[in-house]
């Protein structure tokens, strides 16, 4: 099971938890790493690209954000303190690439890079064409700018949508509705 990926270009760290190996690499060298993993390690199938926002990670309160400017309110119903603080994250956003090799046992690998707001992540569309829509979705909902993507436009929300809904500082509820009294 344990297979080492220390030889991957731009290698930063590696850990295996829940039988899943996560390899963190330098953001700038992602395209090179992707090509290496596809051609040398046999990960020819890109299953998924997903970004996560860790704003407020480990802060007081719970997972899920109530969305007011003052932060989390412990007195709101359903808000409970954490028993122990989760370990800190290096930057605000993680972008994970779930790779799969079409071989016996379906070996999988999570390739991960970290970035702050506005920092570009190299696009892997040239390596795995399927990344096209995945990257557009993460750009749309999480606001990750993928550098070198041939067509980086919104995909799920309308073209004139403001903000990136899956970010933790994006409030829930209250989006403008046409022809309502609030307009």
């Amino acid at each position: 099971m344990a297979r080492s990926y220390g030889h991957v270009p731009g290698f930063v760290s590696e850990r295996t938890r829940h039988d899943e190996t996560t390899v963190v690499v330098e953001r700038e060298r992602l395209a090179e790493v992707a090509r290496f993993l596809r051609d040398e390690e046999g990960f020819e199938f890109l299953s998924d690209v997903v970004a996560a926002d860790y704003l407020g990670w480990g802060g007081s309160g719970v997972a899920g954000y109530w969305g007011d400017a003052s932060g989390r309110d412990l007195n709101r119903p359903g808000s409970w303190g954490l028993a122990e603080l989760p370990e800190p994250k290096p930057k605000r956003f993680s972008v994970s690439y779930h790779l799969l090799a079409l071989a016996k046992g379906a070996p999988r690998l999570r390739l991960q890079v970290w970035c702050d707001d506005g920092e570009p992540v190299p696009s892997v569309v040239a390596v795995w064409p399927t990344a096209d829509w995945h990257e557009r979705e993460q750009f749309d909902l999480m606001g990750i700018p993928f550098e070198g993507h041939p067509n980086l436009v919104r995909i799920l929300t309308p073209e004139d949508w403001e903000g990136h809904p899956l970010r933790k500082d994006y409030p829930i509820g209250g989006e403008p509705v046409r022809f309502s009294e609030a307009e």
Partner: protein
Amino acid sequence: MTASPTTPAFPARGAAQAQRASTGPPIYEGTRIPSPIPTILQVPDELRATDDILTVNFGPNHPSTHGVLRLVVDLDGERVVGVRAVIGYLHTGFEKSMEQKSYWKAITYPERIDYLSFQQNELVFVLAIEKLLGLETPPKAIWMRTLLAELARIHSHLVWLGTAGLELGAISMFWYCFRERDLILDLFELVGGVRMHTRYFQAGGLAEDVPTGFAEQCRKLVDVMSKRVDEYEALFDRNQIFLERTKGIGLLSARDAIALGQSGPMLRASGVDWDLRKAQPYLAYPQLDFDVPVYDEGDVYARYKVHMDEMRQSARIVRQCLDGMPEGPWIADDRKVVLPPRAELHTSMESLIHHFKLVTEGYRVPEGEVYVTIESSRGEMGCYLVSDGGPKPWRVHFRAPSFVALEATAACLTDALIADMIAVAASLDPVMGEVDR
């Protein structure tokens, strides 16, 4: 429809369908994925300059788009020279909503993502929770989950077959498929009390025991199912109109299918022998005997054949699950995660406290991130779950197989005619709820 009801015997097909249907030459040379944008077929400039290009908006409100898919198609006469899929009309923010709910409340959301194979979506989310919790599931729950996942596959394929047939003018197929679909919904009603979105899977097992009479009623369905699939095939396989509209249409080679991330029936119709139920054993699949249908043609007809064979195989699996269903508890005995039995609440203070804490706060899931995949009706269904140690998910993301399938629209529609577009879009089997989430 040219089906003749007088045809006496349907071709008797054995259970073994694993042998490949053809070993002809590769369907096309090189790659057909457009460049540089893999998902958009762009009109060449010289063709655009002729002023003969007609741009047609197909959808989002069109009966043949399986919901709200919109295709912007550039036509040169009847030939498709450019195509762009526009999605998002059904985006409902499931992932954002789930972050606001405790885990046991969030289980109701994934079912509504893919509203044709809801049990499988529920399953992938519950498996992700269990993986983070390190929770063991009793054998009876594992077998029942396998059974329901396969029933959901038959259900989803039936709806696909009925609607895809409808779009090609075969209206009788729709009635037949929905007749069997109703039997499956009856079974779902028996286990969960509702016909769709049953929310029968809990973290740790099942919400309730398998109801009495389920096995008998399910066996009745299984007994007729494979014969019914033969009937469907008899309707289509000798129908000249259907054959001409599906054979050699919407080609996708194995290499392009992998590069475009295709999975499930799409991949197996392009000649790749890949099924997570075999390659990455989960639930009770390692103990079950079934075949994976693979076809090499990579066209709409091959996708149709894969769906048909999968229905037969699923019926086989359901029968084995009924035979092999072990006795015992249906949910894990972990009082920090699983609701205590109702009767205990009247006598045990401890149970009452557990019940109160679970219902108001929910259970806490240890910090970590997992990515769990299963073979859903449409292919690789993935769930990425991040927990910060609290009772609500920090981040949930679903890898939707039909979202990825729609990425192949441009490659499949290269050199196609406008009339083929309907058949090709149907063969990708998109469920827009899942595409837009």
